[in-house]
């Protein structure tokens, strides 16, 4: 059993730790490239959403390199993610690949059951340790990334925080146990605390809402955190992998309470579940409008149904809570120039707006 899985941001680091810890060999799909996208587009239904195509490209490239077991996620609700695994399996079989596919449903009991199936000669304690290390890696990376997004628009020497981040990712990837991981994490945090910041800068604060895959995958979203950071914007992403896990899988109390709070905020605009993150896109926009963010960027894959519902409601929300919203649809041909022009214009809009509020 040689395991592979789709890419989504830095998720591969955690999954690699998990499956290695379960005693399995792992083949990572090569980093997402033009070829990945071309392969995915060639064999996917034309009108399906972008993550489907990129995932499929990942699988093909990993199978080419010797993987024989694909671990991927299932899903429930109106979002097409729930169909991904079945259709991708069919496409890959028609192409002549021989492999097993393990579909993990977003449910902690199912996950434990599936992990048990994957684990090779490991007792319960060892499975637990592997699981714990993988989660700790996700938490560490998300926490550091949040901090980098805060520092980027303020740092005196441009690129310093990104340099620390890139180095730390490698150490986290290599960490074989919790204590090495924690040392690396704390080292990164203290190095980031030492980054020299420009005094007297009050960067624009932009909240990012929308679909999780485009939000987390830099090769698809044109590295939007980095771009905005270098344009002098503090980026606050409303979704990281750790948020998803703590909320949807472990159903931690603080997250459930937050969901409840968010659902109440969205309720006047959207009172029922539309799949994906549609309700949260609206709720976070209301919430960040109330918290005096300067603007919202709403991002989603072209043809994403839940987010299209949200997109059509957002102009009303934007008007009511008085916060500008820029909706960006990402597709295979999303040109860099088009995105940059819109981001620059949006930032100009927010700057003039702040200036006006300041003068008023």
């Amino acid at each position, binding site marked *: 059993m040689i395991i592979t899985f789709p890419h989504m941001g830095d998720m591969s680091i955690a999954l690699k730790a998990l499956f290695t810890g379960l005693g399995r060999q792992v083949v990572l799909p090569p980093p997402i490239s033009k070829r990945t996208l071309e392969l995915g587009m060639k064999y996917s239904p034309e009108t399906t959403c972008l993550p489907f195509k990129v995932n499929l490209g990942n699988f093909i490239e990993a199978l080419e390199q010797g993987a024989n077991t694909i671990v991927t996620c299932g899903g429930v609700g109106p979002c097409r993610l729930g169909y991904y695994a079945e259709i991708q399996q069919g496409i890959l079989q028609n192409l002549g690949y021989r492999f097993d596919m393990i579909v993990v449903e977003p449910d902690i009991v199912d996950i434990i059951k599936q992990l048990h199936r994957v684990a090779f000669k490991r007792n319960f304690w060892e499975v637990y340790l592997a699981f714990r290390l993988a989660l700790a890696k996700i938490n560490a990376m998300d926490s550091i990334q949040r901090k980098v997004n805060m520092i980027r628009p303020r740092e005196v020497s441009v690129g310093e925080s990104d340099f620390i981040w890139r180095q730390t990712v490698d150490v986290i990837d290599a960490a074989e146990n919790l204590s090495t991981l924690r040392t690396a994490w704390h080292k990164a945090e203290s190095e980031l605390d030492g980054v020299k910041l420009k005094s007297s800068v009050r960067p624009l604060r932009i909240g990012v809402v929308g679909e999780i895959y485009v939000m987390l995958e830099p090769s698809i979203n044109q590295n939007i955190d980095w771009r905005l950071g270098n344009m002098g914007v503090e980026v606050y992403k409303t979704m990281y992998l750790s948020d998803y896990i703590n909320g949807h899988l472990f159903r931690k109390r603080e997250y459930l309470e937050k969901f409840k709070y968010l659902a109440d905020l969205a309720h006047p605009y959207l009172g029922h579940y539309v799949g994906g993150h549609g309700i949260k896109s609206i709720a976070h926009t209301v919430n960040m409008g109330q918290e005096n963010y300067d603007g919202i960027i709403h991002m989603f894959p072209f043809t994403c149904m839940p987010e299209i519902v949200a997109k059509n409601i957002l102009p009303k929300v934007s008007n009511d809570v008085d916060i500008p919203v820029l909706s960006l649809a990402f597709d295979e041909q999303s040109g860099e120039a088009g995105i940059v022009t819109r981001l*620059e214009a949006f930032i100009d809009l927010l700057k*003039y707006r702040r200036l*006006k509020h300041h003068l008023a």
Partner: protein
Amino acid sequence: MHVYLGIDVGSVSTNIAVLDEFGKVIDSLYIRTQGRPIEAVQNGLRQIKERNPEIKVKGVGTTGSGRHLTGVIVGADSIKNEITAHAVAAMHIMPDVKTVLEIGGQDSKMIIIRNGVVTDFAMNTVCAAGTGSFLDQQAARLNIGIEDFGDKALESTTPVRIAGRCAVFAESDMIHKQQTGHVTSDIINGLCQALVRNYLNNIGKGKQIQSPILFQGGVAANKGIKRAFEEALGCPVVVSPYHNVMGAIGSALLAKEEVTQTKPTVFRGFDVIDFVYTPRSFECSGCANMCEVVEIKMNGNVAARWGDQCGKWSNSVTVA
């Protein structure tokens, strides 16, 4: 005479505006980019210099999809996106403007302005059916000069409905109408209405379109489109007197702001007309990002590099 230059390098046209110190437009130029932005800029500047030998440039701004490249070539004080440039120009020409309709060669946008501040904007994403290039094509197919297209539409007496959702389907609809015997002027008018419908449905979706409305971009010269907008919106639409060079005017105004705030201009002077610029691009193999790096040489020396995410190439250039 002290002036500010604005250069707008778009996909179809390259425009230059010359503004005096009070923001008055004293000269402007509209030429085709023809896929060679560097030559277009050099050519345009040559014409400007010949027509206005007395001018002394105090600041230069660039905009349009070729703004970064042009900024390097001429030495620009301000390099700004076309949405901001168009908004600044619109407010300069019509201070109380609330809505800007802009239709260019390959893009179209709508800018919403309230109390002198941009509050919302939209730009076409996946469809070209509502842009100038499509009108250009159809005029050529019907053998009508693009300049006469609008007047022809105004001659229409009977409305003909053309599907405007997609340029290809609009064309087959037009051919169908023409083969069944409809008058050309009615078909052209139907096309104008279809284009406006498509624009308002796509770009104008969810936007609060209030008057005063300013119409700019190359397509604003088309009287048929102007009338179709007025019919659809139920209020007058004003065409800017400088409608086809508004981006350039806006970038000249932005340059003016930039140099008064800080330092003298970084304009390389009209000598750039005869400089030799050689661009090239390569794929960096330093990491998995595989950035496409663009490098531009000026008279044999590397003047700028961009396109890399980590700064490895762009930061290694010392000559600005």
